[in-house]
């Protein structure tokens, strides 16, 4: 099981990033990552190494996330408001080339974006995050979500439009400034 331990070490931060965007909550994200790795450990004998480990893990994670959503009936969004200010988390800025204004606006839009993500169905949210945050191709997203490329294409397009509508309604000025900055 040294191989599995190594994969955990290499992928847990990336997995946490997706889990955080899926749940919008630091502690739920940690629970989701733990649950996903425990499931991955149990079924590791079924893992086909032709598929990247993260893709396989994301498939497990999206299923675990949908289970969590169904179990709880709703998603909590409270801790996103405290993220970064409660001393329990730090922020990594993935785009050092971006202008300071753009970075500041991105930071300011983080909360509205996360709220917009959480307002979507789990299927739309997962498709948009896998494509736009993880940068996966539609075929990989379809493989992870066990659906067709056509369905993925539709979920991503409709999901992005829902996000935009939400941002224009709840953060029109910040979002407008961000768009002007590009």
């Amino acid at each position, binding site marked *: 099981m040294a191989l599995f331990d190594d994969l955990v070490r290499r992928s847990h931060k990336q997995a946490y990033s997706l889990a955080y965007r899926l749940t919008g909550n*630091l502690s739920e994200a*940690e629970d989701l990552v733990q649950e996903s790795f*425990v499931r991955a450990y149990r079924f590791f004998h079924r893992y086909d190494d032709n598929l990247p480990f993260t893709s396989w893990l994301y498939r497990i994670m999206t299923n675990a996330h949908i289970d969590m959503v169904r179990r709880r009936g709703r998603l909590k969004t409270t801790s996103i408001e405290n*993220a970064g200010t409660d001393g329990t988390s730090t*922020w990594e800025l*993935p785009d050092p080339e971006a202008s300071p204004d753009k970075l500041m606006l*991105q930071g300011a839009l983080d909360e509205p974006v996360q709220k917009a993500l959480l307002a979507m169905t789990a299927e739309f949210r997962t498709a948009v995050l896998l494509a736009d945050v993880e*940068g996966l191709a539609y075929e990989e997203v379809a493989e992870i979500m066990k659906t067709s490329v056509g369905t993925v294409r539709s979920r991503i397009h409709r999901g*992005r439009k829902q996000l935009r509508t939400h941002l224009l309604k709840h953060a029109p000025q910040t979002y407008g400034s961000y768009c002007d900055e590009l």
Partner: protein
Amino acid sequence: MNCKTVQTHLSAYLDRELAGDQMLELRAHLNSCTDCREEEASLRSLKSLLGGLPIPDPSPDFEERLTLSLASARSVQTSTRNYRTSVFLFAGVAAGAMAMTLSFLSNSSGQAAAAVARDKSITFEAQRYHEVYNRGADAYGGPIITANYDGR
């Protein structure tokens, strides 16, 4: 391509997920249509926003807690596996013992049956000879020829 079709395919266009000829057709439409170009720019901004979202770090002790929860899952799985192995082993030994007992019993009763059969056969033969000599027939049912040694 009309505006409606173009706008349906804009996300796939931005993600470079359209076939080559569709990409070219859509690009040609964008060059000549202001509304669709604005829609494309708007979706491009959103995609850029999502791709540049800050990524939070997990809490400092998260890796340690993750390792512990995996160790716990591992120990549960190992004890479950050991339990299953013990159950299978016990079942195997029990089945073997039962098979040996049955085989022994079956052999014993076979030998006893053979002995009884042998006894019955001897008794039958003895009775048969007894009856034959009483009836004046040989062991195979033929008449007993009493020899007259002087030839008469």
